[in-house]
């Protein structure tokens, strides 16, 4: 070791930002996305078409909106498995309101309000009563969707006003749908919230070490409550888009989405154990999942088989780094 000067000046950072970016999970994921894009365009002549690609974005925009909020929640060390049920309940509430003749602005308010209300319920149970979020949200998942079933049974709501269709079917300009633009705006907002604010820093601190965060004066419960509320809010917004796109509501709407949303978040490099991850990663993961689903769809692969791919994608992306690490460790030992 070289001689250490009396008072060393410690640099702020090591390496350049380029070297740090290059080795990241997001870079790897981005490469995967590019590969899938190339494979898709080789596999199907219909793939490289602006309108087809625009259609493909509907595969992920609604889920990704919820995934942004879920990413913050998982980084903070919690999880919300009730998101899909919130979407179902919000959609049911809008359906009932539409039946009663409520107009488009009212429907949007009811959808978002239901989402926020459900988020508040989860927040009170987890942050207020300090209960484990996995079990609590398994409970609220049954409760929220159960209410939708009580209201709807085996029936369906339809008859939404014409102007309501804009959120799921409208285009802002050229091939850019309202949903896609909303997705992009929300991505920027959430990235700013997580990476550029005190709130985001505190979320990371809680996820890495809740004790130390609490001991640093962070109001852990308040932040967790806010995160559940935010997740409810985003589920409400997703419900508006989805309901508008489908034009009808069944209690089984968005069934199983919670798994796809968690998969998207984890695939995006967010640690399921909390404390690490970026919104950029989740955005790329959304594209990867959208492209895989769309590509398989062009090849006429049925939906349930696609879900095998999604499940495999989840397990492989999590196990691969572990296996590589173990392999390297064995080699060096």
């Amino acid at each position, binding site marked *: 070791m070289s001689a250490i000067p009396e008072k060393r000046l410690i640099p702020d950072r090591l390496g350049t930002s380029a070297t740090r970016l290059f080795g990241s999970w997001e870079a790897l994921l981005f490469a995967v996305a590019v590969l899938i894009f190339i494979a898709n365009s080789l596999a199907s002549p219909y793939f490289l078409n602006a309108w087809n690609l625009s259609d493909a974005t509907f595969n992920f925009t609604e889920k990704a909106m919820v995934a942004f909020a879920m990413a913050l929640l998982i980084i903070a060390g919690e999880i919300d498995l009730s998101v899909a049920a919130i979407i179902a309940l919000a959609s049911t509430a809008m359906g009932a309101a539409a039946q009663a003749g409520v107009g488009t602005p009212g429907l949007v308010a009811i959808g978002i309000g239901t989402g926020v209300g459900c988020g508040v319920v989860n927040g009170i149970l987890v942050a207020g009563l300090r209960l484990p979020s996995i079990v609590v949200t398994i409970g609220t998942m049954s409760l929220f969707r159960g209410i939708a079933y009580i209201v709807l049974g085996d029936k369906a709501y339809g008859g939404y006003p014409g102007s309501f269709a804009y959120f799921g079917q409208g285009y802002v300009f050229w091939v850019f749908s309202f949903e896609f633009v909303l997705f992009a705006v929300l991505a920027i907002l959430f990235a700013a919230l997580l990476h550029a604010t005190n709130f985001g820093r505190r979320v990371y601190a809680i996820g890495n070490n809740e004790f130390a965060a609490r001991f640093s004066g962070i109001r852990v419960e308040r932040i967790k409550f806010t995160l559940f509320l935010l997740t409810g809010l985003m589920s409400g917004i997703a419900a508006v888009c989805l309901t508008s796109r489908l034009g009808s509501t069944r209690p089984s709407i968005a069934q199983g989405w919670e798994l796809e949303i968690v998969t998207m978040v984890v695939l995006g490099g967010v640690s399921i154990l909390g404390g690490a991850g970026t919104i950029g990663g989740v955005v790329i993961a959304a594209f990867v999942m959208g492209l895989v689903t769309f590509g398989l769809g062009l090849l006429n692969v049925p939906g349930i088989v696609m879900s095998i791919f999604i499940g495999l994608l*989840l397990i492989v992306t999590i196990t691969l780094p572990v296996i590589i690490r173990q392999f390297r460790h064995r080699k060096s030992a």
Partner: protein
Amino acid sequence: MIRQLFKFREMLLVIIIAILLAVFSTRSPGFATPGNLANIFNDTSILIILALGQMAVILTKSIDLSVAANVAFTGMAVGMLNAAHPELPLALILVVALCIGAVLGAINGIFVWKLNIPSIVVTLGTLTIYRGMAFVLSGGAWVNAHQMTAPFLQTPRQLFLGLPILGWTAIVIVAVMHLVMSRTFLGRAIYASGGNPTAAVYAGIDVGRTRFFAFVISGTLAGLCGYLWVSRYAVAYVDIAAGFELDTVAACVIGGISTLGGIGSVAGAVLGALFLGVIKNALPVINISPFAQMAISGSVIIAAVIFNARQERRRGRIILRDRGASEQIEVAA
């Protein structure tokens, strides 16, 4: 003290179930007759068996969300086997079901044991994969009653002392699980791995391997239930038991099994399952739409989680050893 608490907890559940039965029989005199009670027990048998597997997993501080998908795949596999080879004896089919279930459980367990992946992620992934495989296996086709042989369909329905073989199967499994949990090394290791993983390692227990075996138990029981389910409902299709994994978790939570691991009993899981079974069977009797069942089990899960948390919080560390202090604890609690 905690043993008394468990007794208290289990007694409480017995009393609640008894009260429910009494209330329901005022609405419908036939409800609490021995014949109908045997019927309810028989109807709840599959949930009891699956809840016991889930209990073993939860005690080790893990969760198995893939049990219902395991039921679907195994059920489809044995249903198709029976349809294709009606000459095969039922005993062989049972062995096949148990083996398939065990292998699917072992796959979950391997990821948790060897790669240290959180069980919730692994089983979220395998949940979609196993059900997807059921689709791949069948091509989406159903196996109907007329394709299956009489012994395959009728054996679990044979009455023995007034209770069908299905119910007796559950009783046998309860007895076996009780022996395993209380009288074998594996049983103690399961409690120790969840209660205090660090201490378990020092005591020479391989926590990962213990979790693996818990998943194998859960998988094997799910395999058994795959056969039982298909024979009971006389049909096999991809979506059987969809969402049933949540009922198994609910039964455990209601039965007082702590989702933090290490606390819970076989009796608790069985009573939790029976509680859900009684409610499910009572709904038509008291003129509540069967669609309400989901919301009710959601509410019950939430209530049980709150109740469990209160029980667990009550124990404080005791430093002050004189009597005055212990009186204060009573006041504070």
